[in-house]
């Protein structure tokens, strides 16, 4: 059994061992601390100054990463909390992303900015957000998210291979969960990964009543809802988990879905779900029976106290309720 944080750590070790051109930068990432969430543990001891702990300068760290990439290296930058990625917005949008095309020819910028995101850990308003939505729709910028189904090594390879800056969101609760293996989720559900999209399905089931599209950090809450819906409401659901959130990749099998629901951890309004629905509505217009349901966290800051935080962030009950309401 491998925890997601260990899995990511192993992928980084393998990547740095395989490619001497890869650098890793971030705050407090070197040993013995090994990063706030220990994802970079052991890297500095093994790979020396290719792994650098930096000053508290998110904007400049991303800029340095872009500079390394411009000079022919590959850079992986860790932003300690995804909330702080806003400090690097200029470097990401106006430099790294723009530079891939604003010089009139493709300029490769192999840069991955890793962002531990999400709440349900009681860290309060500025250490719990899922700010993916703020980075959608930026030409040249790709947004990815880690999931318990996607191999991190392959994901890193894909992102660096794009030659364009990528954000990789990694849910902080997900770090503590295990990677799924061998196509098995639990006693009822199975999964397969094709074209970067994980599909979780009830073994032997025909067409699902509802297909949920979620990002990696929502997987466990969505699975809990899907299980309850099956056992208590007799509603069969399927789950699609793309590792690439933007631009949205092709999502398989939606034409046969009775209903489509997008669930995201970010706050309601201008979110990823709206972007997914924008892409899917024209494509599914003739087969959809009702509008795509969007589930998001409340349009609110994220409180520190656990009982208040639970009310704001999407929980399994919210998902179940939204789907039952849509299907009724």
């Amino acid at each position: 059994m491998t925890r997601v944080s260990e899995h990511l750590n192993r992928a980084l070790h393998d990547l740095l061992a395989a490619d001497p051109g890869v650098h890793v930068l971030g705050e407090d990432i070197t040993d013995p601390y090994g990063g706030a969430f220990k994802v970079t543990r052991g890297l500095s001891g093994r790979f020396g100054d290719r792994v650098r702990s930096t000053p508290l300068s998110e904007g400049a760290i991303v800029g340095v990463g872009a500079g390394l990439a411009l000079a022919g290296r590959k850079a992986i930058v860790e932003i300690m909390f995804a909330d702080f990625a806003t400090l690097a917005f200029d470097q990401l949008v106006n430099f790294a992303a723009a530079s891939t095309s604003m010089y009139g020819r493709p300029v490769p910028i192999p840069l991955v900015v890793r962002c531990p995101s999400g709440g349900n850990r009681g860290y309060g308003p500025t250490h719990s957000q899922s700010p993916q939505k703020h980075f959608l729709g930026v030409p040249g910028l790709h947004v990815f998210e880690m999931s318990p189904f996607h191999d991190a090594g392959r994901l890193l390879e894909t992102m660096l291979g794009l030659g364009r800056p990528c954000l990789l969101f990694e849910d902080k609760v997900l770090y503590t969960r295990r990677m799924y293996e061998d196509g098995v989720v639990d006693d009822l559900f199975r999964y397969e990964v094709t074209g970067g999209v994980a599909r979780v399905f009830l073994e032997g089931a025909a067409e699902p009543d509802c297909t949920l599209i979620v990002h990696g950090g929502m997987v466990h809450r969505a699975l809990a809802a899907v299980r309850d819906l099956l056992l208590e409401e007799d509603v069969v659901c399927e789950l699609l988990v793309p590792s690439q959130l933007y631009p949205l990749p092709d999502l398989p099998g939606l034409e046969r879905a009775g209903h489509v629901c997008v669930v995201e951890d970010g706050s309601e309004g201008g979110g990823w779900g709206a972007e997914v629905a924008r892409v899917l509505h024209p494509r599914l217009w003739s087969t959809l029976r009702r509008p795509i349901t969007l589930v998001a966290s409340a349009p609110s800051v994220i409180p520190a106290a656990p009982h208040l935080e639970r009310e704001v962030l999407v929980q399994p009950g919210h998902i179940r309720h939204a789907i039952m309401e849509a299907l009724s």
Partner: protein
Amino acid sequence: MIDTFPPFASPRSAPPPAEEDLQLLLLIRHFELTLLRLFEAGQLSGTTHTCLGQEYIPVALKALLESDDFVFSNHRGHGHFLARHTDPHGLLAEIMGREGALCSGVGGSQHIYHRRFLSTGVQGESLPVAVGTALTLKGTGALTCVYIGDGTWGEGSVYEALNMARLWRVPLLVVVEHNGIAQSTPTTAQMAGTVAGRAAAFGIPHHRTVSTEIAEIRAELAPLVAEVRRASVPLVVEFATHRIGPHSKGDDTRTPEEIALAADHDWYTRYAGLFPEAFGRLDREMRELVERAAAEVSARPPSVWERP
């Protein structure tokens, strides 16, 4: 009064600049004047920032830079580019969106990437990127040179980058073109303390030069730049300079007295008076060269861009 520098004058008895330097100075001057003329005539779109009066800085630095150095430039970058790559046709085509443009006409005046020369339009943004490139040059003898202005020091990214540059000992040459005015705001109204004090705060050596004589500047800077390469350390070089033209096109809000004071420091009038013969010949040659380039480039078809 926007001139915060003590009055200075380069020695009137200085020998004439080398012919190739004077030629480059005049090429840049006529390039910039031509842009303003083309704007007036409605033949250029968008905006432009000319370096009138500041041409001698990149020309002086030209001889101190090597081919494998990175050079980062800013919004006022035509002189920086022409001193690095003598391709007025490519640059003009870029600015005019014509065939043969350096960046297919996508970047325009402020966003050029050609070999190891890169300019971008957001103040201070290039410094952290420059540090990243300089990290890869450590110990190679090459360096990264980045041009900024006095106004750029308002950006936090400058300090984040200087901190890392010193901490990680990267070969970074920061060239500050301190012309005393940030767009319309005098430095005295936008900067507390000094550039020197700010460099000192990071333990980064700082050198201020008031000369506008190319040979003198090179003699001053050569050992310092050599040390950046040898020891892999950052250096801030601050030029006390004067922008004799507007910020962009017709937006000069300075008083006639202030503009006249800036013009007093213009190498162009000084050299015209000191070396009338050599100057007159080269001045004519470069004016004609740029005029021909403008006519030729204007007649080209529009640039083509394959949008990704």
